[in-house]
């Protein structure tokens, strides 16, 4: 499903974020990406969504070389991905419902069907009662869950999460992990980055550990 072949990523200015990274994630697999901040976790996720492009090597998603995709093809790649951002990237000029509706509007979904899907996604993350609230009025954990709802409303086959439990206390973090597990159970491929390995203690999952841009 996701395959890295000897990927190098160097930012302008000389910072070598990823060095010779190769791995493969099968369909339906749930994988954690660990490492200290600055280890290259965010860069790796950005390469999958073609937000950044590799300097060397290839990144394949669904057998498509995303590093070589044309600008015009990017939207269609990203519609297959659900991305949960470290900084949420919610829009504060509209309520929770409309934030989750946005991906469906972008895909030109049927109006009635899209409203059903938004409610289902909000229900899944336990925010159905807050659909009219502005994201500003939500707590950090709720904002994170809203971001998850927006990522899954399109029913993507791959879910990428960048530090989804980063600033949350343990209880909230467990809640979110539980939500991810439920996606794993229905066959979604997940790649979740975290610097906090304590949330992984009771789970038997595959771990990719990055250290200074290299896979351990």
């Amino acid at each position, binding site marked *: 499903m996701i395959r890295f072949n000897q990927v190098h990523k160097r930012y302008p200015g000389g910072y070598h974020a990823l060095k010779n990274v190769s791995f493969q994630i099968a369909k339906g697999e749930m994988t954690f990406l660990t490492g200290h901040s600055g280890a290259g976790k965010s860069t790796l996720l950005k390469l999958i969504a073609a*937000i950044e492009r590799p300097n060397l090597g290839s990144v394949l998603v669904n057998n498509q070389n995303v590093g070589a995709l044309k600008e015009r093809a990017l*939207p*269609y790649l990203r519609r297959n991905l659900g991305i949960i951002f470290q900084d949420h990237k919610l*829009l504060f000029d509209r309520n929770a419902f409309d934030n989750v509706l946005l*991906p469906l509007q*972008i*895909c*030109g979904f049927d109006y009635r069907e899209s409203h059903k899907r938004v409610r289902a996604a909000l229900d899944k993350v336990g925010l159905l009662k807050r659909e009219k609230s502005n994201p500003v009025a939500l707590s950090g954990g709720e904002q994170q869950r809203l971001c998850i709802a927006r990522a899954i409303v399109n029913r993507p086959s791959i879910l990428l999460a960048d530090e989804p439990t980063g600033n949350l206390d343990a209880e909230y973090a467990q809640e979110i992990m539980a939500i991810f597990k439920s996606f794993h159970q229905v066959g979604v491929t997940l790649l979740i980055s975290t610097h906090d390995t304590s949330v992984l203690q009771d789970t038997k999952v595959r771990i990719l550990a990055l250290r200074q841009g290299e896979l351990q």
Partner: protein
Amino acid sequence: MRHALAQHIGVLRRMFAAPLAGFLNILVIGIALSLPAGMYVLLQNAQGQVAQLSGTPQISLFMSMDAKADDVDRLRKKLDQYPGIERVEFVDRAQALEQLKQSTGLGDVVGGLNQNPLPEAFIVYPKPDEAKALEALRGELAKLPKVELAQLDSAWAYKLEALLKFGRMVVLILASLLSLALIAITFNTIRLQILTQRDEIEVAKLIGATNGFIRRPFLYFGAMQGLLGGIMAYFIITLSLMLLNHQLDALSQLYASQFVLNSLSLGDSLTLLLFSMYLGWLGAWLSVARHLSQIEPH
């Protein structure tokens, strides 16, 4: 379909979010458009008047005083065979004198004359497509035997026509310049909007929005602003003409004639609105093409 509608409603909501700024923009566009369009209306009116006054051009042929009846007949036959002439009207000198007495109120003066000072005359109506060769035709007719004078009656109308052509060119230049101004206004408005919606554009790109999807509300906004500016221009022109007509009313009473400025015709009004809408769209398109590519998620 309903998403598109929601997007459009979003655009309108955004417009009304800053009503004063939006209104000022529309006012500026309206004034910019009303200048050339208003001049165009005045020109149209002037042209209507000219057409009414001049009608079809004609050439008056005055015969010499010693022309006899068979000279008149000979000339008439010649004129009838002339290729560039549509028809000819003979003005009897006695008849002309009678007309002069009645129409000018100079009856006493004319009655005091001991002989008729007027010559026999023909009024020549050239064929419409000969209009350009009128001067040449006049020259030829002047050389015919027993013709004293050939006079082109509507020469002044052609001079005025040339003046109107000049006026139309002024309108064209003004319209081109102010169209550019309109495009620039929209360009800048959209640029500011894109900057304030940077976050939204970035997020939309990250979750799979095509450039077309992101572009659409801005183009719609530009077209909408242009259209409203066009409507504003229409009202400015209509109101100005109402005020002018009010003044003209007093003037035409003094001249004992009827003179009214007509407003834009339906076709011209529609052209104005569509054109301003198109210019708004174009300004927005240029702005979006220039600024949207600068916003890339990272």
